[in-house]
């Protein structure tokens, strides 16, 4: 009996040891192996906003233009393009002779024509197709807004006179996108959009679709790789939901010679420790590394290869409520000195250190729109245009006494000598279901900071409380922390101009989605859909109007810069840090892939090194890239 057990154990060990050769380090430089960490809902690129899907779609469905390695827009499915003087009409000449391919890589009978771009807009314009994040495109393309809501009125019974089929048939007459001929598509926009090419890069809503095919599939369109057609550098050849996605090179692709990788494999790895371990074992070519893990890794064998993540266009800011139920805060928040006291009290590097303990200064951001995202015709960064430049480069934490001084000025204007706040009486602040508390109408001013019950956010809130009370003084301000446990923060606390307004201050983020400040700034005007604190700043609104009516792109940016500076100098909202975090380890040869600024990754042209790239190598590649970019421009 004992012998049998011994033999079985020995056999098992031999089996385990002998098969280890099947695993381990891959030196394959033709297939890029990466991962995704969260499930994604669907491959339907019009009805999802998941980052992984964006990556897949960007590589499998070509748009009209694409960025090159320097971030300049070059021809993709459009061979050439023109626009009128005010950027309201854009005309693209489509590459002839292209066909959609299926999930086996075989060409289908469907030719890729200008009509497919028209049909993309037709698809998202129908509410029944459930397209996501429509606002920017729907408000930009002429007639699309009316078409969408016209159909919706019919669907919900508000319009009983119009025939739905007739309205759908009149799409081409109503909506500003037309196929002028088989290979020419023209977009007519409601307002000038010099940034339109960047919108094509960032928005999946402007991608083409084979309409007959999509309509035939109905709700099944995009549910997996077999229910999609492809026209990009890759197609999805293998698809195991929540497990594996394989992109294989499209041999019929118009630019196949520049597609360097034969395949890209995504596998799901939900846990950061596992992805790091797999990278160390050579099973994947890329892993992100949280800042917390940096210290543990920096002295190890991969320490030299830890590369800081480069940029994030998402900005975290403090949102102030201008019509909340807290009479003390409500009185003070209308006062510029009080807002500036808060602006000066928040130590950005300290908050940044929660995410990036090694070098928190690289997270500090004073502007709403991100640096490095928008440039004028001379290549000047938008955040460095006057007068925004002063805000962007300011060090609000430089003077420790500033917050107190501003607060004293505010108190002098708003309080009586006995410390009571003018016009404010004691009462109850009802921010239920988050918090209900009493205020006495006297100093210190009660400020209710509301956050989610996420562990990181709780620490952030506690730090905010400590730094504000220390900088301004507990005799002047009392920060009360409250945390929403509903799981529906925006529905319970804020997040909509229609309320609820159950907060005085909360922490939020906005992201620069394309190469124009309007993407954010038009949303946060006094009447803007994102002005959830409901401030009223006519001067800001007027400058936004001027920007939108400007004759040239540079003039437009100048007005936007003035508007953003006005809002921030008045501290109506308080940007703090970018959402940048962490490091990465990678085999990707830096700067060989197209330079996508707006949230996508393109594999066309990417090269893989035999070993992980070191930070030193990365810096050399970067310097070389910068030099070539400057020479090219």
């Amino acid at each position, binding site marked *: 009996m004992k012998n049998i057990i011994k033999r079985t154990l020995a056999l098992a060990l031999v089996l*385990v*040891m002998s*098969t*280890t050769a*099947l*695993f*381990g380090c891959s030196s394959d430089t033709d297939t890029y192996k990466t991962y995704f960490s969260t*499930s994604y*809902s*669907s491959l*339907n690129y019009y*009805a*999802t*906003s998941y980052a992984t899907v964006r990556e897949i779609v960007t590589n499998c469905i070509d748009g009209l233009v694409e960025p090159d390695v320097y971030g300049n827009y070059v021809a993709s499915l459009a061979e050439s393009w023109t626009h009128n003087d005010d950027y309201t009409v854009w005309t693209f000449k489509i590459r002839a002779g292209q066909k959609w391919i299926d999930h086996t890589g075989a060409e289908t009978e469907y030719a890729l024509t200008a009509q497919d771009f028209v049909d993309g807009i037709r698809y998202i314009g129908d*509410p*029944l197709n*459930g397209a*996501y*994040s*429509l*606002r920017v495109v729907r408000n930009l393309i002429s007639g699309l807004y009316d078409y969408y809501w016209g159909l*919706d009125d019919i*669907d*919900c019974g508000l319009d009983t006179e119009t025939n739905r089929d007739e309205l759908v048939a009149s799409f081409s007459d109503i909506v500003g996108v037309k196929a002028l001929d088989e290979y020419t598509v023209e977009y007519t926009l409601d307002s000038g959009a010099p940034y339109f090419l960047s919108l094509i890069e960032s928005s999946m809503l402007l991608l083409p679709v084979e309409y007959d095919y999509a309509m035939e599939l109905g*709700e*099944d369109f*995009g*549910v*997996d790789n077999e229910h999609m057609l492809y026209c990009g550098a890759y197609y999805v050849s293998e698809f*195991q*939901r*929540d*497990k594996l996605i394989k992109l294989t090179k499209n041999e019929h692709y118009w630019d196949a010679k520049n597609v360097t990788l034969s395949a890209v494999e995504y*596998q*799901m*790895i*939900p*846990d950061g*420790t*596992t992805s790091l*371990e*797999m990278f160390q*074992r050579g*099973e994947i070519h890329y892993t992100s590394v949280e800042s917390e893990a940096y210290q543990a890794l920096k002295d190890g064998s991969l320490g030299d290869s830890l590369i800081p993540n480069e940029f994030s266009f998402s900005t975290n800011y403090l949102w102030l409520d201008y019509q909340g139920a807290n009479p003390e805060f409500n009185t003070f928040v209308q006062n510029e000195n009080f807002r500036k006291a808060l602006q000066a009290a928040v130590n950005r590097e300290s908050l940044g250190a929660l995410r990036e303990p090694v070098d928190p200064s690289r997270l500090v951001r004073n502007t709403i729109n991100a640096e490095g995202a928008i440039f004028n015709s001379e290549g000047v960064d938008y955040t460095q245009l006057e007068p925004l430049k002063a805000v962007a480069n300011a060090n609000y934490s430089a003077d420790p006494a500033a917050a107190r001084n501003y607060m004293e000025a505010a108190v002098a204007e708003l309080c009586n000598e006995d410390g009571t706040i003018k016009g404010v009486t004691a009462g109850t602040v009802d921010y239920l279901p988050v918090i209900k508390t009493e205020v006495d109408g006297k100093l210190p001013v009660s400020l209710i900071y509301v956050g989610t019950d996420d562990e990181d956010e709780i620490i952030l809130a506690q730090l905010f409380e400590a730094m504000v009370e220390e900088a301004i003084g507990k005799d002047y301000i009392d920060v009360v922390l409250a945390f929403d446990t*509903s*799981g*529906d*923060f*925006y*529905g*319970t606390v804020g*997040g*909509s101009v*229609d309320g609820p307004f159950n907060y005085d201050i909360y922490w939020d983020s*906005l992201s620069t989605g394309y190469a124009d400040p309007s993407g954010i700034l038009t949303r946060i005007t006094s009447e803007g*859909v*994102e002005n959830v604190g409901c401030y009223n700043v006519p001067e800001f609104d007027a400058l936004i109007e001027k920007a939108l009516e400007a004759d040239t792109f540079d003039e437009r940016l100048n007005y936007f810069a003035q508007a953003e500076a006005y809002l921030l100098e008045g501290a109506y909202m308080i940007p703090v840090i970018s959402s940048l975090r962490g490091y990465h380890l990678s085999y990707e040869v830096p700067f060989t892939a197209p330079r996508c600024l707006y949230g996508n990754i393109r594999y066309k042209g990417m090269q893989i090194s035999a070993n992980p790239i070191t930070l030193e190598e990365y810096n050399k590649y970067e310097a070389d890239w910068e030099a070539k970019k400057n020479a090219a421009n």
Partner: protein
Amino acid sequence: MAKYILKRIVRSLITVSIVFFVVFMPLRFMPLNGYFPDEMIKETDEATRMTYLRNLGLLDHPLIQLGRFVKNLFRGDLGRSITVYAKVPIATLLVEKIPVTAFLGFWSMLLGIVAGLAMGLMMVRFKDKLGDTLGNGYIMIVRAVPSLIYLFFIQIWVSKWFNLPLVYYDYKPLSWILPIVSLSLSSVAWYALWLRRFMVDEENQDYVKFATVKGLSKKAVLKKHVFRNAIIPLSAYLPSDLLNIISGSLVIETLYAIPGTGGLLTTAIKEQDNPLVQVLVLMYAVVSIFGVFFGDLLLAFVDPRIKLTED
């Protein structure tokens, strides 16, 4: 007996219906924002969000939604996921995910039973000796230490020692080993613990003392009398265990990137995917209730002394 079975089936169906209704209705009163990711709430106006929900039928009266679901259910249409896997047919999801979870679950159940019973036997055979102490130590560790700690340890270090894959691949049998072992750890402890308890209990029965007095060896008494009687109560749990292999484990499926059903219900509830929640609750309710039912039947089958009816 047939009458009893019929009665139990009817009662089970009523219970399933009540459970389903109790879950279905509150889902309809959840906040509407819960149907959207935060990004979409910020990117879209309320009118567009309402249009989106209306077109999914989520603004209809709850009873109308209930009627529609039941009607489609009888047609064999489980509906489509709305948030977790937008528009993907739920039947497709279940066909994709259940086999993966069930496969690993079946082998882990088998391993749990075999290893658990073996450990239980060893603990009784060597009661108050090293074998018993080791068994108790294992049970204590599995039950007292947070599972994430030892599961994570197994994934990272055991995989390294034996050069096993870190995550699950359906085409690499070696990658199945750690998930199966991890899944079976608690059931090994459970079967060992209860077998030991039942056997120790049986050892004090008069018939065991009689058999010992008759001169039978301890080994023979344990094998022929005690084990056979002690295993009877455990057999009642087998049908439930077998049916529950489809439910999966959130932690282990996450650690090993197993595309199964573990955590599916949690995610569906969190993202307010009503159709998916409904189907999963219905499925799990059927499994649980019929698991108990089949357990009772099995008990009566393996032990003729147990009568399910008065006759």
